[in-house]
Each structure stands twice: as C-alpha cells, then as structure tokens.
C-alpha cells in the first residue's frame, strides 16, 4: 500500500451493528465464488464413488469385486480391510460406525466399498457391478418398530426431573394423555458432500472438505489413517449450505479420499450424487412423544410427564446430545411446576441421524406447543391465552426454574408476544377467521401465534471455546482467520465487522481467509448457533492484544499517556497528532512490535451434570414469536400460508440485514419441516424420498403470501456477548411451528373447535385431510 492520504471520516465502513452485505455476495451472483468442486483439479486427480448396501440389516457373506476392478478406468477398490488405522468414523469415539461395513450392514445404503477411477462417471458405473451375498437379519426402520422389538438404545438416555410429578399429576383438576409424532428432515444443502485429498510427503495430507467441523475431520482422518493430527490439514472456504448436515457426516468422504490419496499418491475427490448423499448421510431425528398432562380448569399447567422416543439410526453419532436438547426444550416458554421428561434414543436400521438446525430442540419445543394446544381445547380457550398463562415469570415470581434447574434470568417472551399480538392484529383476525369458517363449507382458515425460547451454548461445556488468528501486515492490511466455518450464514462477514470495529478501519482492509486447522487448532463445530458468539469474541481478543501493544508503543514513542492514544476511523490519534492507520502500522513494524495475535474465548458461567440432570447448560436464551394464518381445502387437505408476522430477538444485532435473512430462511425451513418435507422408508427399509423429485422442500410459492419480519430492536443481551448480540442460526427455525398450529386450528373448525386435532408432522395435505375426516366423524 502507498503512503496513505489522511482522511477524517466520521465512521468506518462495516462496523459492528451495520447492515453489511454478505462478503461473497458479488462472487455468488457472478458464479465466481469457489466451492470445492469448482477448484482447479490437481494433475492426475482420481475420483471416488461409494458401493452401498441394498439390505437394511444383513450379514455380509461375500463381496465379489471382480467386475468392478475389471472396468476400464478403475484404479482401486477400497474395502474395510484396506483401512490403515481404525475402520471407524464415529464422532463420539463409540466405535459403532465403520467407515466401510465388513461383516454386517445395518441400513439400506450403508457404504461397503469405494471405487477409485480415472473419472467420476467410471467410478459410479463400476460401483454398480459388485456382487455381494447377504444373509438377511430382522430389521426395523421406525420408532414403533423399534419399540415393538425392544430395540437397544444407541446411547444412555437422559431424564429431567423436578418436583413430584408422580403424585402431583393426580392432584390436578384436569388431566389428559396423548401421543404426537414429529417427523424428521433432510438437510438438503444445495451443495452435496464433497472432499478432495491431496497427498504430501511423509504422512502429510491436505484435505478440502465441505464440513462445519474441520478439526473433527482432521481427528477422524488421523484415527482412520493411524497418523497424528499434525500431518493433516483440513481447509474449507465456504460450503453450499450445512444446517448441521455437515457437522459429522463429511468425515467418511474425507477419510475415503485420504486413504486412496495416500495409497495411490494421487489426489482423490469424492463427490456423491445427490441421491447417494441423501441415502448415505444422516438426517433430523423424528420423535414419538407420549405425554400425560395435569392442569387446572383455567388451563394452568400443574405437572407434565412425557417420553421422547427418537429414531436414531444404527449408531450413536450425535443422538445423545440431540435427544438431550429435545428434553431441554420440551418446556418451550412455559413453567412446569412438576415435571418428568425422559428420552429414548432408539436404535433403528436406518442411516444414523445427526445434527440439524435446532439439534433436537425443535422436536422438544413443538411437543411443548402441542401440550398447550391440547390444554387450550380441553378448557375451551384460545391457545394464545393458555400460552400467556403458562409463560415463565420474571425473577422473583417463583416461576423461573426450568426442568434442568437453570433459572430463566433474561425472560422477554411476554413482551415479544404482546408486541406481535398487537402488530399482527391477532385478536381481530382470529375473530374474523372464526366468522369466516362459520359460513365457508369447503375452505377453512386458521391462525396461531407461537413463541420461541431457545437455549444458547453447546450442552457439552468443553465445546464452548474458540480461537482466532489476526495478522496486521506492515502495509496495514489485515488477515483474519478463525475456527468458524462459512456455510451462508454470514459468519465471516460478522467476524470481519468485529475486527474492522476493533481497529476502526474500513472492512475492505480485512481479508477473510479460509478456515484451516493449520492456523487455528482444536476448534469446535460451527454449530449450536454459536459461530459469531464464540469466534467473534476470539477475534476480538486477538485484536485486543494487538491494540494493547500498539497503544503501548504509541504512548512510549510519542511520550503521551496510553489514554491519549485513540483509534479513530482509519487513523490513530496520538496526543494532538493524527496519523493514518497504514503509516502508524509501518512505524510499529519498524519499532519491532508484534503485529500478530492468537485470540481465544471460552463461554463463562456454564456447567452441566447430565447424570444429575442439573446445571446451567445455557449462557442465555434467545426469544422470538411468529403469527401465521393459513387456509385449507377440506376436500383435499391442500393448504396455503396466507400471512406470517415475526418478531425476533437477536439482542443487539451485529448485522441486522444478515440476521433478518437468517430469520426468514429459518422460518421457511421450519415450515417445510412441519408441512411438505416427508421422509418415507418402504418395507425393505429403503429410503424412497432420496432426491428433490420425491422430497419436497419449500419453493418460492410456498412462502407466506404476506411476510413481515422484524427484529426486537430494543433487545440487548443481558450477558456481555460480542456487541451484546445474540445467536440467530437456530432459534428462528422454530417460528415455523406457528404454521402447524394454524393448520391445526383450521382443521379443528370442522368440529367447531371442540377437540384438538391430532396432527402429526409433517402435516402434508394427506395428513390434513385425514385429520379433517376424523373430526367429521365426531
């Protein structure tokens, strides 16, 4: 950089709290943003394809790969025996997830071998030519099948217990029992999994992996290869969507690519076809919730007893923390005086289910909302009234303790809900809808206003740490690196804003660089909505260190007090003198000031004892509410979302436009989960909805006809997070529940709102029509 002209701008470009565009927006729209499959391919690149099981549960008697190997262009076939280290990719170290099945398969679509060939097309075609002999074993694909067969748990279940629900539930004036089934969900990131491994000298390998968790890819590859982590570098600049589906599921592709790359000493790429990606990688857990509710005649909850049985698939993967988080959110926003919640993480002969935005929380929360609906119909009141009646109270109210014994200290749900009720005209519209339904025989409408309270932090306390690396080069340009990954959520932009703000320089000066295990080690997954909370703070810490050195240098060199060194936009004021940032940095360099720092952050206050079911798993809560109106056709069950209004809490937003995008996207994804997105396995245990032709995520025409989204601008995080902001990735996903409950009301109108319809999810047109039919019969 040339010696700069001193400008005296009043503010920088891109500070914290500014609505900046996504850093890659320009590249996205011109097609120049590089995803892994777009990178120039190394000379001699080979391609891999998976050979998948076509049995749900069977012993493998023999594997004949003659025809595969005889295919022109095929270079090698990897089987379980070829794994140099341990044939296991289980993220929790459970040894229950072979990279390649050797003696038995436990789901339809489980990888048994991998073909390495000169082209991807050759590898895919050859993979179909294996002859595998099996001996079938009994299998079950779903929760009911697992319960009937006394299926084992994939991991120790959890219980949350407070008060004496055993006796108190009998004392309640009213009581009801029910069952609710909530469906799973395919991530449908637009970019399928991909890994590219480039071999180096000694044990070295460089891996480009579409992963939310580069450190885990590094760890698993080390485990599978039998080599230390220091030989493995994992990089990721951007993913084409993740949503939790790339937290652990990318491990297998990176591991296979590395095995082949090291054996053949050629670069190897694995990019499964969409259908294979959907068959061979995990999804959101579906749950069956059995509940017993005690309440008074007003609808005030007295005691709750509920069991959450989950389809976990054949291995543990993340099912422990996922089913735990379902229990953590089964209270939604409501105080349960006496409560007993138990998880059943059931083994099934299906792909191992995994993380997905909300991580079990949405399944728990939607069950909590179903409890409210049941109670509201039982006492003949508007569900919103029952919601308000049961909200957690303010500190001192005696209604602040969660089932896991954490106090809700930052509760703003009542204010969020009442503001939305007002701005969305809830009461008037509900009255109008009831009047409309009374004289509309075929089309019926419904409206619902539902709250969200979501706990922020990894429940595994150790994961709540992060690192960052900041360099200032002597031309004044800044290099930023941190452990978080970019999957579209705008994390890189937000953290760059933090750095720009810290040094008071325009954000253009901050170069955002690809996440790599070589710069920041031992990172946590970019997950649990924690990306900007953790990495923003780590980057801030790195900037703080450099700033402190710079301030000390300036004070010494200019002989002024440290308090007289002030970072102004793109310049530094030292005593009476102002100097351009570039020139100041150059001087610091010549004075041999260290212009690089590694930052670190760990979330304070949190702790959790899973066995005891007690602690403070969450640093704080994020809140929100949505009001949706729908209309349904009672002849076919087809429906339309007419309008949605959202008021959501992101604390003091780091970037309001990016946060709004997260809220809109999460709402639509949550709505899809509860409406048209249906996973369907046949009697053989085959997933038959394995492509967008059969698995239906929302389209533009499915979004609400009228869609009003607002941030709760007055909100500030009660805890000292980065800029007092709050996490935004997952909480708004659950705003989609308003659509389900609005559909439920439209269905209930058929029986004059006398009964709460059982409406399992996804509430496809079929489920809506069948619910209408059941109510017509009453």
């Amino acid at each position, binding site marked *: 950089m040339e010696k700069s002209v001193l400008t005296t701008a009043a503010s920088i470009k891109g500070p914290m709290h500014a609505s900046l565009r996504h850093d890659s927006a320009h590249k996205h*729209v011109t097609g120049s943003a590089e995803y892994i499959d777009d990178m120039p391919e190394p000379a001699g690149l080979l391609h891999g394809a998976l050979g998948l099981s076509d049995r749900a549960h069977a012993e493998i008697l023999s594997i004949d790969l003659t025809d595969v190997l005889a295919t022109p262009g095929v270079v090698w076939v990897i089987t379980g025996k070829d794994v140099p280290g341990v044939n296991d990719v289980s993220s929790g170290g459970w040894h229950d997830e072979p990279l390649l099945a050797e003696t038995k398969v436990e789901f339809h679509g489980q990888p048994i071998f991998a073909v390495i060939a000169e082209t991807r097309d050759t590898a895919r075609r050859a993979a179909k030519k294996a002859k595998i002999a099996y001996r079938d074993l009994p299998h079950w694909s779903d929760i009911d099948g697992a319960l009937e067969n006394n299926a084992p748990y994939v991991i120790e279940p959890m219980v949350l217990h407070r008060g004496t629900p055993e006796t108190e539930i009998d004392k309640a004036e009213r009581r009801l029992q029910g069952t609710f089934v909530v469906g799973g969900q395919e991530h449908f990131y637009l970019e399928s999994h991909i890994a590219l491994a480039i071999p180096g000298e000694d044990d070295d390998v460089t891996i480009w992996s579409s992963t939310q968790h580069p450190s885990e890819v590094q760890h698993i590859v080390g485990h599978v290869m039998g080599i230390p982590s220091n030989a493995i570098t994992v990089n990721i600049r951007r993913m084409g*969507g993740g949503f939790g589906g790339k937290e652990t599921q990318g491990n297998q592709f990176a591991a296979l690519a590395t095995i082949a790359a090291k054996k053949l000493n050629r670069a190897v790429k694995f990019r499964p076809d969409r259908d294979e990606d959907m068959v061979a990688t995990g999804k959101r857990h579906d749950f069956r919730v059995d509940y017993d509710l005690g309440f008074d005649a007003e609808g005030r909850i007295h005691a709750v007893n509920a069991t959450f049985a989950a389809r976990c698939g054949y291995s543990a993967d993340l099912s422990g923390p996922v089913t735990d988080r379902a229990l953590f959110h089964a209270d939604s926003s409501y105080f349960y005086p006496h409560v007993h919640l138990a998880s059943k993480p059931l083994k099934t002969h299906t792909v191992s289910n995994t993380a997905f935005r909300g991580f079990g929380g949405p399944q728990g929360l939607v069950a909590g909302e179903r409890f409210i609906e049941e109670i509201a119909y039982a006492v003949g009141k508007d569900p919103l009234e029952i919601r308000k009646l049961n909200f957690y109270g303010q500190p001192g109210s005696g209604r602040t303790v969660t089932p896991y014994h954490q106090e809700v200290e930052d509760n703003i749900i009542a204010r969020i809900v009442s503001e939305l009720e007002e701005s969305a005209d809830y009461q008037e519209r509900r009255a109008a809808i009831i009047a409309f339904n009374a004289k509309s025989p075929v*089309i019926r409408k419904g409206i619902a206003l539902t709250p969200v309270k979501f706990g922020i932090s990894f429940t595994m306390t150790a994961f709540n740490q992060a690192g960052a690396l900041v360099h200032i080069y002597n031309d004044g340009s800044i290099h930023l690196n941190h452990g978080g990954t970019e999957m579209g959520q705008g994390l890189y932009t937000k953290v760059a804003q933090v750095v720009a703000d810290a040094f008071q320089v325009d954000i253009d000066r901050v170069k955002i660089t690809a996440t790599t295990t070589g710069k920041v080690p031992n990172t946590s997954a970019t997950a649990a909505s924690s990306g900007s909370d953790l990495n923003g703070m780590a980057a801030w810490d790195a900037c703080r260190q450099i700033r402190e050195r710079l301030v000390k240098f300036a004070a010494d060199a200019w002989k002024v007090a440290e308090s007289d060194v002030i970072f102004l936009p793109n310049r530094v004021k030292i005593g009476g003198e102002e100097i351009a940032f570039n020139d100041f940095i150059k001087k610091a360099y010549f004075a041999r000031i260290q212009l690089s720092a590694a930052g670190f952050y760990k979330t304070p206050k949190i702790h959790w004892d899973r066995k005891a079911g007690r602690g403070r798993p969450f640093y704080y809560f994020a809140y929100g509410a949505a009001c949706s109106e729908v209309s349904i056709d009672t002849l076919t069950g087809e429906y339309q979302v007419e309008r949605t209004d959202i008021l959501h809490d992101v604390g003091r937003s780091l970037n309001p436009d990016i946060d709004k*995008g997260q809220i809109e996207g999460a709402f639509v994804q949550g709505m899809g989960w509860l409406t048209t997105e249906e996973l369907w396995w046949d009697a053989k245990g085959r997933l038959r909805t394995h492509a*967008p032709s059969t698995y239906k995520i929302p389209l*533009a025409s*499915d979004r609400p006809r009228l*869609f009003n989204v607002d941030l709760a601008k007055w909100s500030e995080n009660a805890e000292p997070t980065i800029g007092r902001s709050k996490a935004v990735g997952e909480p708004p996903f659950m705003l989609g529940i308003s659509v389900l409950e609005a559909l439920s009301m439209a269905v209930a109108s058929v029986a004059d709102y006398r009964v709460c319809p059982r409406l399992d999810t996804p509430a496809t*047109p079929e489920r809506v029509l069948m619910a209408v039919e059941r109510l017509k019969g009453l």
Partner: protein
Amino acid sequence: MTGSISFILNGEEMEVRDFGPTETLLDWLRLSRRLTGSKEGCAEGDCGACTVLVGRLVEDRLVYEGVNACIRFLGSLNATHIVTVEYLAAARGALHPVQSAMVDCHGSQCGFCTPGFIMSLTALWLTNPKPTRDDIERALQGNLCRCTGYEAIIKAAEKASETRADASDPLYGGAEKIASRLRDLALTETATIEKDGERSILPASIADLATILACEPKATIVAGSTDTGLWVTKQMRKLDPVVFIGHLSELQSLAVTPQGIHIGAGVTYTQAFDTLSREIPAFGRLIARIGGQQVRNMGTIGGNIANGSPIGDTPPALIALGAELTLSGVNGPRRLPLESYFIEYGKQDRKPGEFVESVFVPRPKAGAHYAVYKISKRRDEDISAACGGFYLELENNTVKTIRIAFGGMAGTPKRASAVEAALTGKPWTEETVKAAQAAFDTDYQPLTDWRATADYRRLAVKNLLMRFYLETTGNPQELKRYPEAAE
C-alpha cells in the same frame, strides 16, 4: 452427413464433434470448458442450480429460456446460444441489473443456488418488464433455495425490473445478430456424431426421422430430455443411438381451429402455455404446475404422452377432453384415441419405427364444464399423487356426457368408467354425485407409495368429484384454494 454440431457459447461460436450421445451440457461446461459457475445440485432437473439460458429460434424469433443443464444433452444444442452466469457481467463489464439487485437485497446466503436463480431471473427480466409476485414465483418454480426463505430473492426480482433491458444488454441489444447466426447454423441435412462407437443422430426433417427410426430399432428418441436425462444421470443407462428431435420445426406446429387445438409433439409446455391458457384455461393452469420453468422450457406434451408414465400430468387432462393422438413412421400417420395408446404399465401402442407426431385436443362444447385437479405434497414442481381431468356436458341439468380420467391411480392414465356410468343420464345434483363417489373404488385400486397412501388417493378422488360438482354449481370464489397462474 455432418459429424458435428455448432452453437454459440456465451460470446464464442464453436463447432463441437467430440461428445457422446448422453454427455450433459453441465458436465461439458464444468469439465471441458471449466465454466464452474453453473452448479450441480441434484442432477435431475429439480433444484435449478445448473440453470443456463438457451437462446433458440421459435417461429424465427430468438427466445432465451432457462434450462436444466444437468439433464440437457449436448447433442440437442445445435443452432442455439448457450449463456452461462459467467457471461452476464463479463459481457457488460459490470454486474447485470439482476445480479446487482440480488446483491443489494441480500438474495444470496450460501450462494450455491444463486447462479441458477440469476439465470432464471434474467430470463424473466428479458421478457417481462413488470412481473407480478405470481409471475416471479412461477419463474422460480424450478429453483430451490435452502437458505433465504426466498423473500429476499423476490424483492431482488422486483428491484431488477426497475432497470430495463436496452441496447447495452448483450442478449437484448445483440439479438438480431445472434438470430442471424443461429439461422445459418440450422441443420440442412442429418448429422451423426460418433464417439467411442456411440452415436447422436440429428435428423433434418421428420421424413429423415421416419427413415432413421425404421432402420434404428434401438434408437431412443429425445425431445426435451426431462425424463431421459434421469435415465442417464440416475440410472446410468447407456442410450445408443440417441435421435434428437427438439430442433425439428415440423413437430412444433401449434394450430387453433374451430374444432380444437393441434399440438405438434415437439411443442414445449412453455410454447403451448399461452394458447392453452386462452383456449382451455383449466388446462393452462395445469401446465403451470408441471415441473419448474426450466422443465417446461424443455419438456414437450408429446414426450409426456409418448413415454407412457402412469403419473404424467397431461394424459388424464387430455383424455377427459377426448384427445386424439397421431403416430407416424415410414408407413405414414395413424390416428387413435389417446386413451387407447396406454395399454398397460410400461406398454404403449407404439410400433417399432413409429413416433408421436401430434395430439389433437377437441374444443370443449359450448356450455360444457371442464376442470383438472392435481394433488401433490407441494403445490408446484411436484409429481402428482393423483391428477384428474373432468369433462361434463349437461342437458336440462342431466348428465349427457361425462369423461373422468386420472393419473396416479392405476398402471396407466385411466378413465373412471364406473363413475361415468353412475353419473350418465342422472340429474346433476349433490345426491347423484354422492351416490356415484363409491364407484371410484371399482375403477381404481391405487397403491400406497411415498407420494400418498392408497386411502388418501381413494378419498381425494371422490372429494374431487364433489369439488367439480360444487364448482359447476356454486360460487367459485368460496372454493378457491390459491392464486392460479393462468388467471
């Protein structure tokens, strides 16, 4: 006989001869040309991440349409202008208005679907100066985004329309020059391109087509490749030879007469949309729900019939209208009622060497009622759980003629003859309809699959008869489910 095809890729005219019959446009762009802006999201024409524009002459007018490069075979692109996302800004030296609007409105998050959205919105921008929200949604039915929830993209489309196409736009301003080049590139004789012993054959006329089919019993006829594309990308089938017919203007006639509408087998859904919406609005509304815009730009009504799928959407709608099919071959044309073309699952009345030439749709009689209902999990770009056409002529409120046909209810598109019998000659009343509903169980024994259970299918078709009755007698506003495309 030539052994190559020619087209314009972005700014460059080229002749290509080294490709196989099932090589996709997307693989060619990404692997051979290293144009990696177009992405593979699904390789089956559903997600739209691979969308590129293809400019071609339709009735001698240059039109640019979004297509799914992932299931489009390279061999089908002679005399076209292929435009990829890289070209839009490169040709202008600045962002295209659609691109600027997407940046300004935060229309991208992960960015992987974005190039496809840019191309679909550019196609809309070129043809529709003031799109409504419904227009935009329809233009985006073939583009999936998992991040944004679409609101920002819709706003970007509206904002882009504030800047209009002018001479500075390479596609708009350069249209005449491009059209003239494409005219020169049109085939004058049959082209056969061979690679590794596999052949792509491009007849220059339907006479050539008949001759080729007569001596190529193994040939696969490919028009829009919206179905055959998946045979290749998903089932990895070898197709050899492939006979491409999408370029044959003789198969693209669309004629409206007092008797009805004559639709050439090569007419795409998009080409037929305006005419059908005007002449038979209910049919037009169905067309707007078939596939996404890209699939409608490629797929043909002839192909939808020819491949004999039990879940094709147009056959039940056409059978209810009493449509007739014309097949042709070296022995000349042959006409038959459309419904008799479908013999059983996987078997159609098409003899070796024959091809579907056209379909004739009789105009509904004055005063007749006609409706088509498509039931699917998602309203747009979904495959039907059941799709039914209802055609009714009344005389003194008595059922004179009724034709009901459904797809998704049997191994072929099939008439509900028992229901028709239960209604014919009866007064058109709720009682008659209720009494006839049970006869659907005689007509159809549907399956349970991932799209719907048999119970739902049975119940829904009965209820659809009731809906049809109510629509013919009641207030349509009270029955309206959602805004319809052709309104």
